[in-house]
């Protein structure tokens, strides 16, 4: 055992003595919450890992440990050692069979974060249970047995994580003690994983070699693996950056309940699915499209000026407009697709198979509506991760369907919004929850434009017929937003992208920041306010052009997160592809052909990003191009992979 397993508990005690309880409460009473999913095959050591996390971070209480010792002699498989896996089991019948078959939730906390662990079994019902656990998780730990390396189920687990929208993955390579703590074993597994993980577009992947049984690299480090410098799993759990995972751009407030305690108060209560809402904001309610302004926001009975997802709030409006459960408040210029038909990936969770033609109840946000499966496009073979034709979907199968809903639900693509893109299907006879669904982007231009138009009409209450040019163009319009320091390579990338898209038969237009400044924005300078206005104009142009069916490539510094968020809001998240041209300032300065930086350094000009104005690097761009190397072809490859994943362009 790695020394001092009570160290963490001790630390906590010391911290407490040092600060005193009142200050301790002030400091540590406000942690962040992180939800974790653990996945692994039977015997990979998953339960042991969680047991270790709980125990070594001092979440297991003494009397539970006493009970555990009793249990170990009854059910344990570890002989004399305490079997940490037994901490994880819940239901007696399962225990007697020596397996877990459901999702169990576990809790532990450190001074930095509270963790909720969804523990899902490695076999049988794995797809259903994993999907359940993954639906609420921010981060997944995928276990691999160091002796076995990458197995088909590793791919399966990673696929389900990405399908359910998990953005952070830790691949824990376990049982390192059995491979003599070999760095080369670790490295070869890491490179095997790298390939398919890249295809799944999971943004943040880390690899950690561990020995769960002895607790090495779980909470504490390991003397046996001095070659590994990445820190134990707990450190990664404490530092995973999840703040930007929450969609704070697209306002979606589903009405859960209308509160009418007296004649003077009519509040719409609901949990913000995404976005930020302030008093005074203009909102539209879907599906009616009626507009009003927010008069008050209360959270937990207290009035506040601003609320953000996932707060549970109640709002009142300036005007008496009708809204009831199932309706959704949005911003008038940023509404989701309102369409009776929707395309989705579904995970089937019931013994009775999904069959096309059957009607179910669909619940999304607070709306429940009858919905008929009109088409089963394909089933995903999750061994090969290829799609195949299918007549039905059985238990644990994943497939793509089209549903026709009686009431049009206000949904977004799941890839853009994990709250408003999710739904469940309920069997009308048994009331069982039979499927989990994730809305996918419209496949064809007609659908996209049609849906957008209806949503737009509903939100603004105007009905302007528009010529559907994109139908003629035969492409899905979208906006590539290139951001980066001056001379970071944006124009180069934009030019090349234009060439390649054009060569692929696409209608594309480039909006370059510098050329816009010569015309559209010739009245603007480089102050913060002027830059924001420049960003807004560019975004509005991009939106208009993409509304006409064009693919738009924007190359502009857009130095602040606020400018880019505003652009995303105008363009709409669904169409917006943020690309970060990431070159260090020194590199950009070295490319200073027109002496932009030199003059700024000499004080001849002011407001140059990187010199006397800050550049806020995007925290979660759709793509990050390291534009220090002259490999534009590689950059193109990366971009087209992103486009394909979003369903925009397939080369």
């Amino acid at each position, binding site marked *: 055992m790695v020394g001092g397993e009570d160290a963490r*508990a001790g630390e906590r*005690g010391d911290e*407490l003595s040092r600060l005193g*309880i009142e200050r301790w*409460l002030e400091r540590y*009473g*406000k*942690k*962040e*919450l992180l939800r974790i999913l653990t996945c692994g095959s039977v015997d990979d050591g998953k339960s042991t890992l969680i047991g270790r996390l709980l125990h070594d971070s*001092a979440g297991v*209480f*003494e*009397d*539970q440990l006493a009970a555990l010792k009793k*249990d170990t002699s009854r059910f344990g498989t570890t002989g004399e050692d305490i079997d940490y896996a037994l901490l994880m*089991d*819940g*239901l*007696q019948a399962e225990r007697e069979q020596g397996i877990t078959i*459901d999702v*169990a*939730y*576990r*809790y532990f*906390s450190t001074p930095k974060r509270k963790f*909720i662990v969804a523990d899902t079994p490695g076999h049988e019902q794995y797809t259903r249970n994993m999907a*359940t656990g993954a*639906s*609420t998780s921010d981060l997944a730990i995928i276990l691999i047995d160091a002796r076995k390396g990458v197995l088909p189920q590793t791919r399966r687990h990673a696929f389900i994580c990405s399908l359910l929208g998990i953005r952070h993955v830790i691949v824990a390579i376990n049982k390192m003690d059995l491979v003599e703590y070999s760095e080369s074993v670790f490295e070869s597994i890491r490179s095997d994983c790298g390939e398919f993980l890249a295809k799944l577009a999971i943004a943040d992947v880390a690899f950690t070699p561990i020995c769960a049984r002895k607790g090495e690299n779980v909470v504490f480090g390991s003397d046996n693996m001095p070659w590994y410098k990445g820190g134990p799993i707990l450190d990664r759990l404490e530092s995973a950056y999840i*703040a*930007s995972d*929450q969609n*704070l751009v697209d306002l979606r407030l589903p009405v*859960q*309940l209308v*509160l*009418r*305690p007296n004649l003077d*108060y009519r509040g719409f*209560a609901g*949990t913000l699915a995404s976005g930020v809402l302030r008093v005074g904001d203009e909102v539209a309610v879907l599906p009616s499209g009626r507009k009003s302004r927010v008069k008050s926001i*209360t959270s*937990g*009975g207290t009035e506040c000026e601003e609320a953000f997802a*996932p*707060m*549970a709030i*109640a709002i009142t409006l300036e005007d008496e407009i009708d809204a009831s459960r199932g309706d959704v408040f949005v911003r008038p210029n940023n509404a989701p697709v309102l369409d009776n038909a929707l395309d989705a990936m579904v995970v089937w969770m019931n013994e009775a198979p999904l069959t096309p033609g059957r009607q179910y109840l669909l*619940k999304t946000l*607070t709306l429940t509506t009858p919905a008929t499966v009109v088409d089963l496009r394909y089933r995903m073979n999750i061994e090969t991760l290829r799609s195949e034709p299918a007549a039905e979907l059985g238990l644990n199968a994943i497939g793509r369907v089209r549903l026709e809903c009686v009431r049009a639900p206000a949904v977004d693509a799941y890839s853009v919004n*994990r*709250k408003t893109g*999710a739904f469940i299907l*309920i069997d009308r006879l048994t*009331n*069982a*929850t039979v499927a989990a669904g994730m809305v996918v982007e419209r496949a064809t231009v007609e659908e996209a434009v049609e849906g957008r138009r209806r949503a737009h009409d509903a939100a603004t209450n105007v009905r302007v017929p528009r010529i559907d040019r994109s139908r003629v163009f035969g492409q899905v319009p979208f906006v590539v937003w290139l951001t980066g320091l001056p001379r970071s390579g944006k124009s180069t990338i934009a030019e090349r992208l234009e060439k390649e898209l054009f060569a692929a038969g696409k209608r594309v237009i480039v909006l370059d920041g510098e050329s816009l400044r010569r015309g559209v924005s010739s009245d603007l300078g480089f102050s913060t306010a002027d830059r924001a206005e420049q960003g807004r104009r560019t975004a509005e142009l991009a939106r208009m052009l993409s509304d006409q069916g064009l693919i738009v490539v924007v190359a502009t510094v857009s130095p602040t997160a*606020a400018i880019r*968020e505003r652009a995303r809001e105008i363009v709409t998240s669904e169409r917006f592809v943020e690309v970060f041209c990431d070159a260090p300032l020194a590199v950009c300065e070295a490319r200073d052909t027109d002496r932009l930086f030199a003059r700024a350094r000499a004080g001849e000009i002011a407001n140059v990003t990187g010199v006397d104005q800050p550049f806020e690097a995007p925290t979660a761009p759709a793509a990050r191009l390291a534009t220090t190397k002259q490999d534009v072809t590689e950059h193109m490859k990366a971009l087209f992979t992103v486009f394909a994943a979003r369903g925009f362009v397939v080369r």
Partner: protein
Amino acid sequence: MNSSTLTHLEALEAESIHVMREVVAEFSKPVMLFSIGKDSMAMLRVAQKAFAPGKLPFPLLHVNTTFKFKEMITFRDQIARELGFELIEWINQDGVALGINPFDHGTQRHTHIMKTEALKQALDHYGFDAAFGGARRDEEKSRSKERVFSFRDRFHQWDPKNQRPELWNLYNGRVAKGESIRVFPLSNWTELDVWLYTHVEKIPLVPLYFAKERPVVERNGALIMVDDERLPLLKGEKSRMRKIRFRTLGCYPLTGGVESDADTVPKVIEEMLRSRSSERQGRVIDYDEAGSMEEKKREGYF
């Protein structure tokens, strides 16, 4: 703008509010089970916030086994008066007629008749189709797999094989006539979370949670408070004054206290952080075989 993140308590509270509102929106006759303990008090505070500025849209139900601590009953009535919610007290009159008590009939039968059966009687009598409970998943191993919406058949039975998968925050609240759900809005809270919330929100609690000199006898290693004359003293037993508090509250003969000096919420939290002993230790009811809680749950006990 992206600094907008909730603390873990705020996130838990928001989640619980969401659950409560879903139930009120989708069920015709909900009720909140009110055990007077700290979890019930936290749940009550969350409920007040969920429906503010209005009153609670459901009554509170207290199943009285007639062996609750006296201070619990006093506190219950005082809180009900101050907050103005509708309180229903239910006592199993059949049990009372039979003179059921934990001393002559054993803890198991007493609990079954005065608590499990009594609860079913009350739910049937009023026709409640959803009942909020303050149970948490961290309390005990078998609870870790419990759903937030826990489905019960016509006979209030819980079938561990037949629970619905719960994804995202999309709860399936559809039940057939006669069927019902138990709802656990505090599922994801831990004991420490409840205490932190009590502290932050300044929630009043029954004084029994705080250390004070109390008359106790020691039995099988548990400190049992002599709350009234009904507690039969065994041979050689004498009640002594000891400074104790309770980590969990139930029937006084079945609830063990712990020696303590903690007489404020922060001090209780401090003791909890320093000790490593989980709260159910004080509950005599759990000292059966592993898995016993699960059997009780199948029968309809929470």
